[in-house]
C-alpha cells in the first residue's frame, strides 16, 4: 500500500505541475529571479571581500634600520616583530637589495641613475616590511614598534606618513563590507517573502481541492506530499535556470569587473567554494524555502 501511495503522490504532483502550467511557470520564474538576485548579491559581497583583501595586501609599514646594525641583529629584531599580535608577515630587505630595487624601479630615470653612480656608499637603509592581518591593526603595531627596546635598531617607521591613507581605506572597506552584509540580509528576506507568497498562491488556487480531499478522508500527509514535491520541482528547475543565467556572469562580467578592480575575476578566486557547491547552495535554499512555505501555507486549509 505504501508504494502505491508514493507513486500516486508523485504522479499527482507531476499532473498538478502541468495542469497549472501557467502558475507553475510563474512560480518557477519568480523563484529563479529571487535566487539570481541572491546569488548576484553574494557574488558582489565576495568580490568586495576579495578586493578588500587584495588592497590590504598592498599596504605595509616599513621600519628603516640604523646603518650600524648588523644583519644578525636585524634578523633577531625581525623574529621579535613577528611575534607582535596581528602581524601577518615581516620581510627583511637588506640595504643592497633595497638599492637594487630602487635602481630597477627608476631604471628609466637618467637623473637618478647618474646621481646614484656619483655616490660611493649605499644611501639606503636595510628595511623590515611589516604586513598586518587587518588594516585596523596598523596603529597598534606602530605603537609596539615605538617601544624603547627597538630604539637602538630602528631609525624610523613610515607609519605616520601613511596613517591618513590607511585609516581612510580601512573605513571604506569596513563600510563596504557592512553594506554588503546588510544588502544580503535584505535580499534574503525579500526572497523568503516572495517565494512564500508564490507558493501560497499556488496552494490557494487549489484550496477547494484540499478541502474536498479532507472531507472524503485524506490524511494530512497525503495532501501535503504533492505540494511538497511540487515545490521540489520548482526548486530544482529554478536552480538550474539560475545556474544557466550565471554562466555569462562568470564568463564575461566577472573577469571584466575583476580586471577593473585589479584582481583576478575567475570564479575560483572570487567564490570561497566551487561553482558546483554554489549550485548545491542555491538548490538547498530553494528547496528549504519551498518546502517550508508549502507546509506553512497549506496548514490553513487542512483545518477542515
Amino acid at each position, binding site marked *: 500500500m505504501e508504494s*502505491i501511495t508514493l507513486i500516486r503522490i508523485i504522479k499527482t504532483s507531476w499532473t498538478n505541475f502541468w495542469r497549472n502550467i501557467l502558475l507553475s511557470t510563474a512560480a518557477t520564474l519568480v523563484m529563479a529571479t529571487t535566487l539570481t538576485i541572491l546569488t548576484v548579491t553574494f557574488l558582489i559581497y565576495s568580490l568586495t571581500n576579495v578586493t578588500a583583501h587584495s588592497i590590504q595586501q598592498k599596504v605595509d609599514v616599513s621600519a628603516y634600520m640604523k646603518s650600524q646594525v648588523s644583519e644578525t641583529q636585524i634578523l633577531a629584531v625581525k623574529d621579535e616583530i613577528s611575534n607582535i599580535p596581528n602581524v601577518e608577515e615581516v620581510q627583511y630587505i637588506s640595504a643592497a637589495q633595497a638599492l637594487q630595487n630602487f635602481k630597477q624601479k627608476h631604471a628609466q630615470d637618467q637623473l637618478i641613475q647618474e646621481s646614484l653612480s656619483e655616490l660611493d656608499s649605499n644611501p639606503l637603509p636595510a628595511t623590515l616590511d611589516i604586513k598586518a592581518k587587518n588594516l585596523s591593526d596598523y596603529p597598534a603595531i606602530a605603537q609596539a614598534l615605538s617601544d624603547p627596546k627597538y630604539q637602538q635598531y630602528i631609525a624610523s617607521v613610515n607609519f605616520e606618513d601613511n596613517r591618513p591613507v590607511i585609516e581612510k581605506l580601512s573605513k571604506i572597506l569596513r563600510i563596504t563590507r557592512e553594506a554588503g552584509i546588510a544588502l544580503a540580509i535584505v535580499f534574503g528576506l525579500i526572497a523568503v517573502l516572495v517565494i512564500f507568497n508564490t507558493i501560497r498562491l499556488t496552494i490557494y488556487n487549489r484550496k477547494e481541492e484540499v478541502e474536498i*480531499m479532507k472531507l472524503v478522508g485524506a490524511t494530512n500527509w*497525503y495532501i501535503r506530499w504533492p505540494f511538497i514535491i511540487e515545490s521540489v520541482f520548482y526548486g530544482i528547475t529554478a536552480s538550474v535556470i539560475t545556474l544557466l543565467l550565471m554562466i555569462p556572469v562568470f564568463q564575461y562580467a566577472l573577469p571584466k569587473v575583476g580586471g577593473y578592480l585589479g584582481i583576478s575575476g575567475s570564479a575560483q578566486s572570487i567564490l570561497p567554494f566551487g561553482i558546483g557547491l554554489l549550485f548545491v547552495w542555491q538548490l538547498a535554499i530553494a528547496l528549504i524555502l519551498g518546502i517550508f512555505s508549502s507546509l506553512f501555507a497549506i496548514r490553513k486549509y487542512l483545518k477542515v
Partner: protein
Amino acid sequence: MIRFENVTKIYGNKKALDRVNLEINHGEFISLVGQSGAGKSTLLKLIFGEEKLDGGRILIDDVDIATISEGDIPFLRRKIGVVFQDMRLLQRKTAFENVAFAMEVAGYMREKIEKDVPRILEIVGILDQMHSFPHEMSGGEKQRVAIARALAHKPILLLADEPTGNLDEINGYEILDLLQKINNLGTTVILATHARDLVNKIRKRVVTMEKGKIVLEQEKGRYQLVPDSI
C-alpha cells in the same frame, strides 16, 4: 450505531444544537427535517468531524468521537459518505475522476478503481456522462456524481445534506429514489432536508428539529409542523 447524548454546539453566542439526544440504528433511513438554521447541517457536520461539539458526546459504534485523534479523523471519514448541498465537485475533473479521487484518497488500487467507478456511476444512472466535466452536466446529474463519490469508498453511513436543495421536483424525487435504493443495499442513510413533499413520500423515521432541539420523532412519519412551536 450512532448515539447523541446531550449534544450541544455553540456558534458565537447562538446555540446551534441544544442538548440533543438521538439514537440511529444500523440500516435505518432517517429524515432530519426542519427549517434552515434548525441545526440539521450542524448535526451532520458533527458526525464526520467537520465541526467539534461543545457539550455532550457522540458515540459511533460505541466509540466516543471526541476521543478520536486528529490523525484518525480521516479513517472515520472513510466509513462515512457525505453528499453536500453545494455538491463540492472538482470543476477540473471529469465525473470519473471526481469519483476515482475519493477512492485514491482512501488508498484503493488502480485496477479496483478502474473497475468500481463505472459500476458506481451506473448505479447512480450517469454512466454515459462518465467523461463529462461538471460544467457540462445538469444539476441533477452533478448531484448524482456527488452521491457516487460519497459511495465510492463503500461507507457504512451516508449523510445527505439537502441533496435536492438545488433541484427541480422530478430530479428531487429521482435522487430520493436513489438514496432509498442505497439504503436497501444496507447503508444507513441520514437525509437532512426541508422538502416536505419528499419526506412525506418516504414513510420512514422522521426527526423534526427546531431551533437546535429535537421537537418530534416519528416512526413512519410525515413532515409536519409542530403545534406548540408555531
